[in-house]
């Protein structure tokens, strides 16, 4: 603050009416607090949505044969008809930094039938032990047990169980077109039920052990459609997918396409962008409100100091100097407010990150953009908003000071000093 006499004057002027300075700074600081905490909550909701949406089944990165999407035909397994060394591929993927787990899967459209009811489902062949580290499907088990490898057991959604009117232990007929053109059909036993809260998942998925589903579909053990990958930070998915794709983790001659969630769930990216964009509206509203409060305070301050300004002008101070003094005072106020704002914001961000506000008692869980959202307002750290809000606050203080500064220069020195 010792950059020049005007700066020093501005800073010292703040100390002349400390109570008012503290009140104004506190107001601005709470504005800052509100913007950053709301942004933190919005980021938290987005992060939670991404985690839930990609964590339940899809994973944050998926590996397929390049031609598997969008048709998802039965034959487009990784490595084509010959398949690939799945354990080696899984191990290579898991060596990538940031990867927490990888799980192989096969998929096929099929029918499950019990009694007179038949429902079309997506049959999923999965390795329950590996799913544990990738998806939350196994954690969503509400009844029974996970299908054991080698057995003809199925894990089905609670809604599907309701439609079929079956329970744990009931036999189901499973029918699907097999890879050799035949109509695969076999009896499977319901081993367990899961409930994710997502209608599509609970109503139309049937998950069996990888080997049993492969056998049903006449697919060799080396043939899988997908490897789902879980990573530590969802936002690093594109970079890790890129690295996996270019580093050549797959055996020679086996083309694999690694896709991050940002490409297979673009609506989540859209939502994140929308959420970030709408934060600017909050910023504008909050600081627009603040701008008038600060302008009022500064207008009062300058009015009180009319005689002082008149004296300065009479002694030869330029109007530019007066403006600088008032702006310096506003800038000093802004910086003080930012410091105060950071002091009251950071602890709350940390607190609500580790002990989030749970609105679960007021509202139940709900789904948004196909992702289950728990009404828990866990704040994330909105790093960019942290700085942008500070910038906006400083700008607010300076804009608010423009008019009072202008008024200060228009004080008529002679009349004012004469008390007229």
């Amino acid at each position, binding site marked *: 603050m010792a950059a020049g006499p005007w700066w020093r004057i501005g800073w010292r002027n703040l100390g002349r009416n400390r109570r008012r300075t503290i009140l104004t700074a506190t107001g601005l600081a709470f504005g800052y607090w509100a913007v950053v905490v709301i942004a933190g909550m919005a980021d938290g909701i987005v992060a939670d949505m991404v985690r839930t949406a990609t964590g339940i089944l899809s994973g944050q990165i998926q590996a397929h044969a390049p031609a598997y999407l969008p048709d998802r035909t039965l034959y487009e397994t990784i490595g084509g008809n010959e398949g690939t060394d799945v354990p080696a591929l899984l191990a290579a993927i898991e060596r990538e930094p940031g990867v927490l787990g990888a799980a192989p899967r096969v998929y096929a459209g099929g*029918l499950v*039938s019990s009694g007179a009811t038949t429902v079309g489902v997506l049959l999923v062949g999965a390795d329950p032990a590996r799913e544990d580290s990738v998806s939350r499907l196994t954690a969503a088990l509400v009844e029974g047990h996970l299908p054991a490898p080698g057995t003809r057991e199925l894990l089905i959604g609670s809604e599907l169980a309701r439609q079929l009117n079956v329970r744990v232990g009931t036999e189901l007929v499973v029918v699907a077109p097999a890879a*050799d053109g035949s109509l695969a059909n076999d009896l499977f036993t319901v081993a367990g039920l899961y409930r994710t809260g997502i209608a599509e998942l609970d109503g139309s998925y049937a998950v069996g052990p990888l080997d049993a589903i492969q056998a049903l579909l006449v697919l060799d053990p080396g043939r899988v459609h997908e490897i789902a990958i879980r990573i530590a930070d969802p936002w690093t998915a594109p970079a890790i997918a890129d690295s996996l794709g270019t580093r050549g983790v797959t055996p020679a001659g086996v083309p694999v396409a690694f896709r991050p969630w940002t490409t297979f769930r673009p609506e989540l990216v859209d939502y994140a962008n929308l959420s970030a964009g709408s934060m600017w509206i909050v910023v504008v509203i909050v600081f627009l409100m603040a701008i008038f409060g600060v302008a009022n305070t500064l207008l009062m301050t300058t009015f009180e100091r009319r005689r002082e300004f008149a004296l300065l002008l009479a002694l030869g101070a330029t109007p530019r100097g007066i403006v600088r003094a008032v702006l310096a005072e506003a800038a000093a106020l802004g910086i003080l407010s930012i410091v105060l704002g950071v002091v009251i914001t950071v602890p709350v961000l940390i607190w609500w990150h580790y002990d989030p506000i749970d609105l679960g008692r007021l509202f139940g869980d709900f789904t948004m953009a196909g992702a289950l959202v728990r009404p828990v307002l866990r704040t994330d750290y909105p790093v960019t908003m942290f700085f942008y809000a500070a910038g906006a606050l400083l700008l607010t203080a300076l804009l608010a000071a423009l008019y009072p500064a202008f008024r200060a220069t228009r004080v008529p020195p002679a009349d004012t000093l004469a008390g007229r």
Partner: protein
Amino acid sequence: MRHLCIAVLLALASPLHAQRTAREIVDHVDRLLRGNSSRGEITMEVVTAHWQRSMTLAVWSLGTEYALIRIDAPPKDAGTATLKSGTEIWNYLPRVDRVIKLPSSLMGQAWMGSHFTNDDLVKESRIIEDYEIAIGFDGMRDGVRVWEFVLTPKPEAAVIWGRITEEVRQDDMMPTWARYYDERGDLVREITFSEYQRMGGRLVPAVMTVVPTDKPNERTVIRYVRLAFDVGLEPSFFSLRRLRSGAE
């Protein structure tokens, strides 16, 4: 004046007349391989990019409402049977000894891996009710006098095709091909008929070849090996019990 009246009346009546004729011909062609009731033996060869297989099928039908199809070969699928009763389709799976009814959401799925859908089994028989039929071409093609019929779905008809065209030879009423278009007007598949021969006392195309337009290297070829008509089947024949027992 009287002559003019008659001429006008004739002019008015003739499209109506032509429409009825077109309907009759398409209906006739539709019934060719079915008769009132029929009993046939079919080989079905399916070629796809990934596999090819040949099946032997036994088929019973009654009118447009009932059909029963049983797979006799290959051994892996032998005994698998499909019953069509009205708009419902039931499958019997001998391996698990269960009968399952196909949910309506899956009617568009391939039947036994072929290029026919379950819908084809159900809906093809309703062509006369579901489509407006017009003559699109009447004349010589490759030295043969043919009609080309254009079938447009009626507004209220729940059908998957946007348009069907079918060519029929005029002198023996034999179909030569049928083309199926989607709602955008793009060709989806073509069925060609060939090897016209007498079976069960009437001239029929013994071979039907289906080629999906987007996969020109794939096809399903249906060949009638034996065919008998008016074999005296009753609706009660087409029961779930019969589906299970294999129909003999």
